[in-house]
């Protein structure tokens, strides 16, 4: 560091979504705070700041971590990815398209964290089973969706990443077909 930095303050160069930015912030601030408050990347949300809800999940070196429990200074030298970095240009990531189309984002507040955890999972295993997806996302709470549309969306995105053009079953959007005896009645 060339210029004197006041005590309790850190200056760090963070690589977020492939872009380097040098920022000064209180040393005790977490990556969550620095992303939102210094870098203006408010896509990363928070729900408890104690590591209990998964809302603030971001990727560090490709692995999902809770940004509320990582000091920003400790992220220096690592690749940080947030929801803002998911799309390529104006093109949505298959996860983003699937979440938007299926309504897997209702209020949308847990969505960034779940998208990032899903991205890490699919990067490792795009053909992840429903059970594997549920386990991988089990640290991310959602209060709106009942998780069904999220599971369907991650599966759909996984298929897309595998090169398959296979949208979810009609049942996902229209509900189950009525049993025959009910239709007759």
């Amino acid at each position, binding site marked *: 560091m060339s210029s004197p930095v006041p005590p309790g303050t850190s200056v760090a160069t963070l690589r977020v979504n492939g872009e380097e930015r040098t920022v000064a912030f*209180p040393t005790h601030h977490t990556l969550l*705070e620095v992303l939102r408050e210094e870098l203006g990347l408010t896509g990363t949300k928070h729900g408890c700041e104690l590591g*209990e809800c998964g809302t603030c999940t971001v990727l560090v070196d490709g692995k999902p*971590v*809770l940004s509320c*429990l990582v000091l920003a*200074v400790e992220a220096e030298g690592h690749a940080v990815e947030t929801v803002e970095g998911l799309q390529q240009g104006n093109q949505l990531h298959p996860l983003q398209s699937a979440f938007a189309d299926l309504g897997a984002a209702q209020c949308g507040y847990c969505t960034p964290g779940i998208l990032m955890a899903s991205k890490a999972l699919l990067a490792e295993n795009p053909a992840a089973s429903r059970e594997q997806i549920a386990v*991988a996302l*089990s*640290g991310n709470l959602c209060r709106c969706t009942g998780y069904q549309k999220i599971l369907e969306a991650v599966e759909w995105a996984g298929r897309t990443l595998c090169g398959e053009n296979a949208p979810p079953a009609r049942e996902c959007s229209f509900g189950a077909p009525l049993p025959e005896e009910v239709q007759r009645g």
Partner: protein
Amino acid sequence: MMRLPSFRFHRPQNLAEAARLLAASPQTTRLVAGGTDLWPNLKRRHQQAEDVVSLALVRELHGVERRADGSFAIGAMTTLSAVAADRPLAAEHPALSRAVRSISSPVLQNMGTLGGNLCLDTRCTYYNQNEEWRRSIGYCKKEVGETCWVAPGSPRCWAISASDSAPMLCALGASVRLVSASGERTIPLTALYQDDGIAYLTKRPDEILTQVFVPAAADRHSAFWKLRRRGSIDFGVLSVAGTIALDAQRRVRSAQLFLGCVASFPTPCTEAMESLQGQIFDEEHITRAAVLARKAASPLSNTDFLPQWRSKMVEPYTEAVLREIAGLPQQRLAPAHAF
């Protein structure tokens, strides 16, 4: 937003430097490994620190190594994900992987470390609360108060050991290396703990837990079950870790059974272990051991669920662990855990 208080933050590059930093003022300095325990505790202000020493850059503390004698040396800073994913370790000690994968949630396992989990502060629903909440009941004994709110008439603190790796590693006969500026020692893991919610570790404040040694499985078989409300995120309200070695006649040569989350330390089921010693490892002896295991536990009302029910659950969960080791069919509804 919950925010951390300010502190001086140190990131030593090697163990000696870390030990030196810690030795300077061990009472007001805290080590941070994965941060999943310390940061929430500092945010809630029930722990304080003037200095925090991160072990993240101490390279020698990372990684799992298989040694010539078949045992494993696991660096304290190895993340829980890395411990669970280590193939040789998982092949040798599948129950350990299972215990580690039962900790909190998969995302948290990417951050939390094995050393951190072994040193996890004891927990209590009267203690793991925000500053304002604790002011409204009056600080408890574990903090600066006089009373243990769990058992107000009791002279001690009843916060519980909620580590999942601890009972399993105790059952596996693990030992740990403790390093300080003044030297180092290696002790059995069971000797690291004591049944006191406040002084739950025998580790001195200036010591750093650096490595965990796990002996080879050889002819031992292990299992781990954990009870908690949800299949992820939650701490346990009961865990049972068992390791059994049999001789050629299916007689129990050695039995290790430890309970987690029912006392301030990983609780040995002494009578149950003794009852199995030298016996045929069959349903009859398993049932008897499970009944005796319950005697080791006297959970109190400082976690989720009712303590009476948690106590009652020791029996079926111990039975499930022993049946799993014996290869007997399960009669219990297995929890839908993230493992």
